[in-house]
């Protein structure tokens, strides 16, 4: 009898073990209470003298005079602003390579395969209050590769960056980049099709036609294979599978575009095939067709005020965000640049100046709106109880040029802390001095001269059709 009880007890313990382990793991991130701050919730107004409690990676409470749990880390937020982590809906950070430009349709390639979690740009973005990135394939082809939505968990392995539950997506591109307008004609070199906007449409239509046939072939095979064991299955085609997902509404389309004709073309083509474009990226002439974009249900992810960097960007105006917002389009402000990504707060602020968006509308451009565009609005994009504890503490209003980020949290853990960064610098200098003395780091008296600093891409990467370095 005793033995039986012991056995039972043992089983119970075994059964609860994994639970305990999971709980223990979650509790490793300490609870944090930010006290007496100005909390910019984005969706529920801006709250003065308010506390925010972070527990188990989530926002556990928002309110006045919250009780600090024992062992909680307490941050005095007096005079500071707490803002949701900024979401950049168009980024190429941490990608070892951006374009597979050899073919016009490269839906088989996946940015997730080439993540570089050590890219220092990520740290700089954290220092700008950014916590989530939409990593997109480049714009070399009408149908590009698959995207990856990540949280910037700098210092962790790449697989821990992946945003759980984010909608899968794919990059499309229209216009000058894909028709290779900036590629000079060279004798003896065949230009990659397409060379016109007409061709771009044809390439996309052809791809979706093939995807539809592909789906039909598999459906037919599955039906027939029930009765015939000796049926050879169709070939699995990694190029067409993501397009079938688009047709089935299981994958978002993020389409790089500029001018009205191509925006309307893609809307019509999507209607014809029965799918939705989730976001138009850049979409500099979006203000001209804002109603049509809104009617399709697409979002727009844009720059604040840069234009005329190529022919198709001549008609842009800085009122784009305001006009589209008023037409009912979900608009976000993106970086498309590792440099601009550090100051997306100011890009959003510009929309108050150009077009008189309210502060709340402008804040949404870099928080809840891009969250909606990526299908993660239930998790991030605002400060609400139950959402992920992805937020930043600013030392002033985020729309002021004089403000900077003190601390950035992701899932309740600190990934950037200005004070810690400054405190670590002497230690790092000491480490550097020691490392430079180590044998493998001693400079050779001969050999090639050192390389210059890496050429940093200028403001726009969208027209930077990357050439693979040998």
């Amino acid at each position: 009898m005793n033995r039986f009880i012991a056995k039972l007890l043992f089983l119970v313990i075994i059964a609860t073990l994994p639970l305990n382990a999971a709980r223990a793991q979650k509790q490793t991130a300490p609870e944090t209470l930010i006290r007496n701050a100005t909390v910019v919730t984005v969706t529920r107004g801006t709250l003065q003298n308010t506390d925010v409690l972070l527990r188990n990676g989530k926002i556990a409470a928002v309110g006045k005079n919250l009780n600090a749990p024992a062992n909680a880390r307490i941050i005095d937020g007096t005079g500071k602003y707490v803002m949701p982590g900024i979401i950049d809906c168009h980024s190429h950070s941490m990608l070892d390579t951006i374009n597979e430009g050899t073919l016009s349709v490269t839906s088989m390639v996946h940015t997730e395969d080439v993540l570089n979690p050590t890219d220092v740009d990520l740290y700089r973005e954290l220092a700008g209050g950014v916590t989530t990135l939409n990593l997109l394939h480049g714009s070399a082809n009408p149908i590009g590769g698959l995207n990856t939505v990540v949280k910037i968990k700098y210092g962790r392995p790449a697989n821990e960056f992946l945003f759980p539950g984010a909608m899968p997506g794919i990059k499309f591109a229209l216009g000058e980049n894909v028709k290779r307008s900036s590629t000079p004609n060279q004798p003896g070199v065949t230009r990659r099709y397409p060379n016109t906007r007409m061709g771009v449409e044809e390439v996309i239509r052809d791809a979706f036609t093939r995807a539809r046939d592909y789906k039909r072939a598999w459906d037919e095979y599955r039906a027939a294979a029930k009765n015939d064991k000796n049926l050879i299955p169709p070939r699995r085609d990694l190029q067409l599978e993501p397009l079938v997902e688009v047709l089935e509404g299981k994958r978002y389309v993020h389409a790089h575009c500029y001018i009205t004709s191509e925006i309307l073309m893609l809307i019509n083509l999507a209607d014809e095939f029965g799918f939705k474009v989730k976001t138009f990226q850049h979409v500099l002439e979006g203000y001209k067709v804002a109603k049509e974009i809104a009617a399709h249900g697409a979002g727009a992810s844009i720059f604040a005020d840069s234009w005329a960097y190529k022919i198709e960007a001549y008609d842009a105006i800085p009122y784009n965000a305001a006009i589209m917002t008023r037409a009912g389009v979900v608009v976000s402000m993106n970086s498309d640049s590792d440099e601009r990504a550090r100051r997306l707060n100011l890009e959003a602020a510009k929309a108050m100046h150009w077009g008189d968006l309210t502060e709340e509308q402008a804040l949404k451009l870099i928080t809840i709106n891009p969250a909606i565009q990526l299908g993660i609005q239930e998790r991030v994009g605002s400060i609400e109880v139950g959402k992920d504890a992805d937020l930043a503490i600013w030392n002033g209003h985020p729309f002021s040029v004089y403000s900077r980020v003190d601390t950035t949290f992701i899932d309740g853990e600190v990934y950037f802390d200005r004070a810690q960064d400054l405190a670590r610098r002497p230690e790092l200098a000491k480490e550097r001095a020691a490392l430079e003395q180590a044998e493998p780091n001693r400079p050779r008296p001969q050999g090639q001269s050192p390389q210059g600093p890496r050429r940093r891409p200028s403001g726009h990467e969208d027209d930077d059709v990357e050439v693979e370095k040998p």
Partner: protein
Amino acid sequence: MPKVRSRLLVALVLLSLNLNANAQRGAIDTYAITNTRIVTVSGPVIERGTVVIRNGLIAAAGADVNAPPDARVIDGTGLTVYPGLIDSYTNLGLPDAAPSPSPGGGGGGGGFFALTQPRPASGPNSTQPPGLQPEVLVEDVIRPGGAEIEASRNIGITTALTLPRTGIWMGQSALINLAGDTPQQMIVRSPVAMHVGFTPLRNSGYPGSLLGVFSSLRQMMLDAQRYREAMQIYDRAPRGTRRPDTDRSLAALVPVIEGRMPVVMLANSEREIMRALDLGEEFKLKLIIAGGREADRLSARLVKQNVPVLLSLNLPKRTTAALPEADPESLRVLRERVAAQETAGKLAKAGVRFAFESGSLNNLSELMGNVNRTIENGLTATDALRAFTIWPAEILGVKNQLGSIEAGKIANLTIVRGDLFDRNSRVTHVFIDGRPVDLRPAPAPTPVPTASPN
């Protein structure tokens, strides 16, 4: 009359064959190295003993072994006999990769296997472009002799895994002994493994980037799965089934996706290794990592997935000159160079199986110095020797033939005055397949001019 002449010819040929055979039979094939220190690797070190070589094999080794009367005796006083060293990732025996006369030009006229251009080897009638042809066998292109093979032998390397130079699916490697008059005599085992490099194709279309490399690897493995299934269905019911196209490339991948043939993936940084491990897991491959500079950071996963590492001894070092106007190097680069010396020791402690490879060091004379650096940074000398002998033999599937001094194994021996890893030691004799090889002293290192102090 013509008949007579042909008969005469046949007779002559037979005679010459016979002579050859006689010559071989007459050659000395029995050696004894006496009064020598024997590092067997498989067992304890024999401080004073004899190694007997007969007919290409190790006949006996031990303290109480006597030299047979017909043996040529080498007095091993002051010498140490080691198993021949194995370099587990090389391009030895391949024709030179000469610069291409017409970059991006069409197929070279030099025949299918002419590796005279810096482009991947190519298989005949392939469905795939060069670089994506897993059916390429390095066995078909290796040649005996050459300066590179000689340089390797001079430092005591007797056996090498050799593989095509470039490609995504690079092809299948062979384990060769670094002596022999014909390619056939050199080969110990072929094919040994499938090789994957992640370098995009150049000037030849898709895949032209790392992104495309991964998707094309995946697509071909999926295609191989279907090919296997289609062939099985066809074999089952040839009557009434439309005959699937044969495809040498996909056929070559079938043993890979079935986990029978190991796949060696070239990966050095942590993220490269992680990508390879992910791909290996996705397709249930029998994976081996080559390069492995930061493999220690993934020790737990390597042990769990049972993935061995062919660890490069081409340790990174600063190559740029010290100029006052130079930008400081990043802390990451400085850290990585120092950490690379510790990888071997950490792998050994974590229980990751690994073997050394020379990592295409330009100057092979640095190789033993670099082994010493791994020993100074946490690897035991015993494990360093194992990583050159029995561990590669195990990883490459030849542990019954190579990797230790035991009776019956191939007589590949490296004989050294002093300790193998000592900076002042000298390789005095090398036996390959039971025969001594001519050693040429390595050229004196070029004197390093001292920087003018200004």
